Structures are given as structure tokens and as C-alpha cells.
């Protein structure tokens, strides 16, 4: 499966990319995060505390145990601070 992965705010800065395309067999968001963490230190650092990471699947907020089947766009970002 091919996913478009987006990073925002300090996740984008730590990873050093705003977006990338990955091919993965990860079944859930948590599986994908485990794969990313294993890649390089900057990923491990960005995902070191999942309590301060939020995820959206195809632009809807989701949980880390959500399945990735059928998903095209995954976004990772810190808790929102708008308004």
C-alpha cells in the first residue's frame, strides 16, 4: 500500500520533511509509527512521546489503533493551538 504522509509544526521540523510517500504493509497507525521510528533517529525523536502527537486519516482526526486499509493520506502533528 502506498501512503502520502504529512508532518506539521514541530513534527515537520524534527523529521525535516513536510511530506513523503511511503510504501508499507502496516495495518494500523501504530504499526506505521513503529516502522517510521525504526528508520532513523529523527523519526524516533519525533515520535518519542505519542501523548503529544495527533493523527488524521484522510483529513479526519483518528486514534493510533485505527486501521489504514483504504487510507491514502496520513497526517501527524502536535495538539492544535488555533483560535
Amino acid at each position, binding site marked *: 500500500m502506498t501512503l502520502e504522509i504529512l508532518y*506539521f509544526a514541530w513534527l515537520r521540523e524534527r523529521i525535516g520533511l513536510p511530506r513523503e510517500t511511503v510504501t508499507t504493509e502496516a495495518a494500523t497507525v501504530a504499526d506505521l509509527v513503529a516502522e517510521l521510528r525504526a528508520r532513523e533517529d529523527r523519526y524516533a525523536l519525533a515520535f518519542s512521546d505519542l501523548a503529544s502527537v495527533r493523527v488524521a486519516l484522510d483529513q479526519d482526526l483518528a486514534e493510533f489503533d485505527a486501521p489504514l486499509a483504504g487510507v491514502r493520506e496520513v497526517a501527524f502533528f502536535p495538539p492544535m493551538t488555533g483560535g
Partner: protein
Amino acid sequence: MQIRVQETPFDYGAESARFTDGCNGIGAVVTFCGIVRNDGGALQAMEIEHYPGMTERALAQIAEEAARRWTLADCLIIHRFGRMAPGEKIMMVATASAHRADAFAAADFLMDYLKSRAPFWKKEFSGDSAEWVAAKDADEAALGRWG
């Protein structure tokens, strides 16, 4: 329902008047305007990042939920992104209803949800440092008010 996400400034007075005059038969309009604070005088600029596409989608969902919960003639959300100086207006919401209780509750609700559920992130620049604003526990807790 009017949602606008833009980099350019907006004219708060003109938008408030246009929104109010555009609603027929209403009795109450509540407007909120968020402004870049300069707490100790040290803040030089604020930068807002957002998630194009999801932002508009999340704001529309929040506005639709407000319209389900209260009787609204209309609502408006304008939110800027990009770089802003202290004193600049970041965003506004406006709600119109026959009665003031609905207009107040809906505007308050829109703000609470927008703060914690719309994909905006603030970064503050002061002196040589640039720091992402941390989400406040109080903002997340505020959502509990709405059941």
C-alpha cells in the same frame, strides 16, 4: 455558513457589519475576535501553520455541529495563517440567532472546538528564539462543557 481560511488580514468591523446585515429576521449576533497578544512586550511575531484541506473540512464540521445544537440563522468563521505581528487580528467567529442564548452558546462552542480540533499551530518569535505554543490543558478540558 461561511468559512474562510486566508493569509491576508481581514477587516473585522466590515466583516461584523456585513454578517449582521446579511441575516434577516434575527435578534442577536455574537462576535468573537482573537488578537495576537504581546504578553511581556517580548513577542515580535506569531506564525500560524495549518493543514490546507483539512482545515476547511474541520471548521465546516465544527460549524455544522453548532448548527445542530442551536437554532442559528447563520455563522461565520474567518481564520488566518502565516506571519502576524502583536495586535493583528488572527481570527473571528460570528453567530446569528433569533435569541441571545443560542448566539452566545454557539459562539462559545465554536471557539472551544476550533481551539483544540482545527489543525492550526502557533509559533512565537521573540528575540533569537522561536517556540511552538504548547496546547493548554484548559483548552482541552473546555470541550467537556459541551457534553
